[in-house]
């Protein structure tokens, strides 16, 4: 039997949405207050969904200790309480939550192989969230 397991994590980070290829007024028009020069922060909530056959001996898709370990080591230690713009992952891209979702998905795809990574869902605030499934169709 194949099941999907989702675990939720919290981290806090700052960012500024600014594109070097746009003029000052274009940046302001595109990003509004997210373009303020000194940046601002969010409490992000990350949901990681993995899937796989339920192991008949353990009753598990994967051991949560392993998933927690990978997410803490590879994602939370990297992005919690940092300025995202200063991270090398965003040297060439704007740290929107769309881009952050894709970066986190790709990091976990590489580092967590005990189950199939289905998607990541990232809440920037209580009012908005983004989902990325590595190009696969998102499931209802």
């Amino acid at each position, binding site marked *: *039997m*194949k*099941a*999907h*397991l*989702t*675990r*939720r*994590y919290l981290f806090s980070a700052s960012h500024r949405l600014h594109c070097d290829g746009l003029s000052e007024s274009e940046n302001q028009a595109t990003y509004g207050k997210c373009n303020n020069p000194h940046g601002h922060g969010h409490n992000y909530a990350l949901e990681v*969904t993995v899937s796989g056959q*339920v192991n008949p*001996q*353990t*009753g*598990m*898709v994967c*051991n*949560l*200790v392993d998933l927690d370990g990978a997410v803490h080591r590879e994602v939370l230690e990297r992005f919690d309480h940092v300025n995202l713009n200063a991270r090398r992952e965003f040297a060439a891209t704007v740290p929107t939550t769309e881009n952050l979702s894709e970066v986190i998905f790709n990091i976990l795809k590489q580092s967590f192989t005990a189950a199939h990574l289905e998607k990541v869902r990232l809440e920037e605030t209580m009012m908005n969230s983004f989902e990325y499934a590595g190009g696969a169709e998102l*499931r*209802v």
Partner: protein
Amino acid sequence: MVYLTRKCEFSASHYYHNPEFSAEENQRIFGKCANLNGHGHNYTLEVTVKGDVDPKTGFVVDLKELKEILNREVLEALDHRHLNKEVPEFLRQIPTTENLAIAIWNRLQGKLHVAKLHRVRVYELPDLFVDFYGEA
């Protein structure tokens, strides 16, 4: 096609133990969940059904009927129970959230007359849930 989700809660106790494993293996794999005295959770169950909207009633499913099925098939069997000791599915199977979602699916499958069961989502904690879509 419209999807409808009904939510309900139940509380139960459980522990994780595989008699084929040594005491050390049970402890290493299941951690504090292996404590044989058990522990409990407030579970949240979300059941999603899908179907076409009936042009006469405007319903995908009769919510009252869905609620009765959930109460009869799931909540009466699981709420305020010890899953390992009182629920037949878990006399031989570990009551992980994965297996719980599968067991609830199996209890509901075939009981709905109009809509089709689409997904069973079981939250063990606000930060941990399992989805089962009936896939082999």
